[in-house]
């Protein structure tokens, strides 16, 4: 194929930034050809500097005997550590779900027309955002000393159902309840922000169609609000996962608790044990971040003209582009 018979330049060429165009100056008509991209020497220098620093850090991490990577390997998947990890997962998952449900209820109460509901919701959020989590946990832990039994009934009147508080309040329950109470206060504000982000016209359209109130919230408002809620709530969730390490103080042996325990039994292994906990927390956070990407992608349906590609799709697309580019270059230069 000769240059003259080439089709009009395709998008791959057109969307490159135009180089200092000589078109205006040169009188000879240009045939379509590849534009040479602008070089960025500064970027290459910065990359080199960063790579050297990263390599130095990695070198230190691997060769410094202080980290005791052998012991790290020994501890990493010990049953006792995995047991703790399971507790961490349990507490975090339960509190995340209960906290979100509580948060939705609080957010709705906060926006209700009933002033009492609004005031209660506001006070709850104010209180639990003010009191440190560790205090909440310790108060709950000592709850059975304050209230021997819990009963459902008329205030100041007779009770109908009685619970023995100390039987009900296992360490796991105390930890989960404490974290959920705390989480709900923060989740409430995240959810409220999400609801506020939905256009007023959406509420109006839903009302004008006569959609039932629950349907309006569940199918119209919430799915749109979730676009704003998900990133903020995942932030909250990651804080929660690491926050579970506080349950050690209510004698629940989670991941961090087991590490602490083993650390006091084997004082020489404190550093590798801390690294074990760190790496597990990093893994949990990473998994949550990946899930976040796909959840966000799901809720971006309709909000974007095109849904963002998954990493796999991105890889495939760039490979395809490289290939097309090479093909185009070959045809032009032949």
């Amino acid at each position, binding site marked *: 194929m000769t240059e003259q018979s080439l089709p009009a330049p395709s998008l791959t060429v057109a969307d490159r930034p135009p180089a200092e165009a000589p078109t205006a100056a040169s009188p000879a008509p240009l045939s379509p050809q590849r534009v040479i991209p602008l070089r960025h020497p500064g970027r290459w220098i910065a990359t080199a500097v960063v790579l050297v620093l990263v390599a130095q850090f990695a070198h230190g991490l691997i060769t410094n005997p202080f980290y005791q990577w052998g012991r790290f390997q020994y501890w990493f998947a010990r049953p006792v550590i995995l047991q703790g990890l399971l507790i961490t997962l349990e507490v975090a998952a339960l509190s995340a779900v209960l906290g979100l449900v509580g948060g939705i209820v609080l957010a709705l109460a906060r926006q209700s027309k009933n002033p009492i509901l609004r005031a209660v919701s506001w006070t709850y959020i104010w209180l639990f955002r003010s009191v440190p989590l560790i205090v909440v946990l310790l108060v709950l832990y000592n709850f059975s000393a304050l209230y021997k039994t819990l009963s459902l009934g008329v205030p100041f009147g007779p009770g109908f159902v009685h619970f023995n508080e100390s039987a009900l309040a296992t360490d796991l329950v105390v930890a989960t309840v404490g974290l959920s109470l705390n989480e709900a206060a923060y989740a409430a504000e995240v959810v409220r922000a999400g609801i506020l982000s939905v256009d007023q016209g959406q509420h109006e359209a839903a009302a004008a169609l*006569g959609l039932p109130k629950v349907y309006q919230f569940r199918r119209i408002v919430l799915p749109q609000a979730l676009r704003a809620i998900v990133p903020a709530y995942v932030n909250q969730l990651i804080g929660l996962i690491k926050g579970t390490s506080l349950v050690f103080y209510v004698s629940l042996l989670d991941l961090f608790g087991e590490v602490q325990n083993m650390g006091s039994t084997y004082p020489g292994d404190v550093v590798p044990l801390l690294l074990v906990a760190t790496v597990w927390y990093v893994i949990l956070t990473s998994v949550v971040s990946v899930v976040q990407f796909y959840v966000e992608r799901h809720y971006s349906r309709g909000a974007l003209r095109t849904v963002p590609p998954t990493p796999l799709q991105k890889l495939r697309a760039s490979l395809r582009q490289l290939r097309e580019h090479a093909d185009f270059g070959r045809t032009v230069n032949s």
Partner: protein
Amino acid sequence: MSGTTTLATTAATPAAAVEVHGAHKWYGSNRVLDGVDLTVQPGQVAVILGPSGSGKSTLLRAINHLEQLDVGHVSVNGELIGVRRHGERLKELGERAILAQRAGIGFVFQGFNLFPHLTALENVAAAPVATGRATKEEARATALDLLARVGLADKADAYPRQLSGGQQQRVAIARALAQKPGLILFDEPTSALDPELVGEVLAVIKDLAGSGTTLIVVTHEIGFAREVADLVVFLDGGHVLEQGTPAEVLDNPQHPRTREFLSKVL
């Protein structure tokens, strides 16, 4: 005319499609509606004209109780909207009852207000299913028919943001039609559109005129009013200044304010 006699006549005579009686509405100290009376017969097309701030939108939104009147009442097919009669007084209805009434009245917004997370088809099919008027399959079939009727059969699976303004408004009209309403209210349906796209939306509304459905359209499209309207209502400062056939109001306006307005719009 006292409130009592009005209520009595509403019950006795064959019901008008829409009757508005002595509608007053204040926003704080700002009087938006100042005693509006309006009657639209079944199957008629009424066009409401007026400068901005004249209370057109508020009046329209009061008809399906998106706005609550401070004084006065609205009835559709003889049924009071948003309130019930309690002896000599009117009491506000519960949320559920109001939603049920609205389901029988279509409303088309200036800004379309399609649900962006649902496809065109889902937008149209959602309400009949949610209000228990149709099964999923029925609603889907009806929705496809309606989309075809507004010329968008090929856009059923598109999300609103992938459609042009005119297409979105046509989907919104199909969404209003899905509830098989006897009355459809249009709040400046073409004001947010490019001039080129106005025609396609007006064409759809023209198609509805004469189909037996009562239409009330707030608009600035005088040509549309002249061609399609049975009743033209000119609103200014919360009053009905003039109403009548297009020939009466548009070609031979009696009130100087109407003349002044028309001279600017035409």
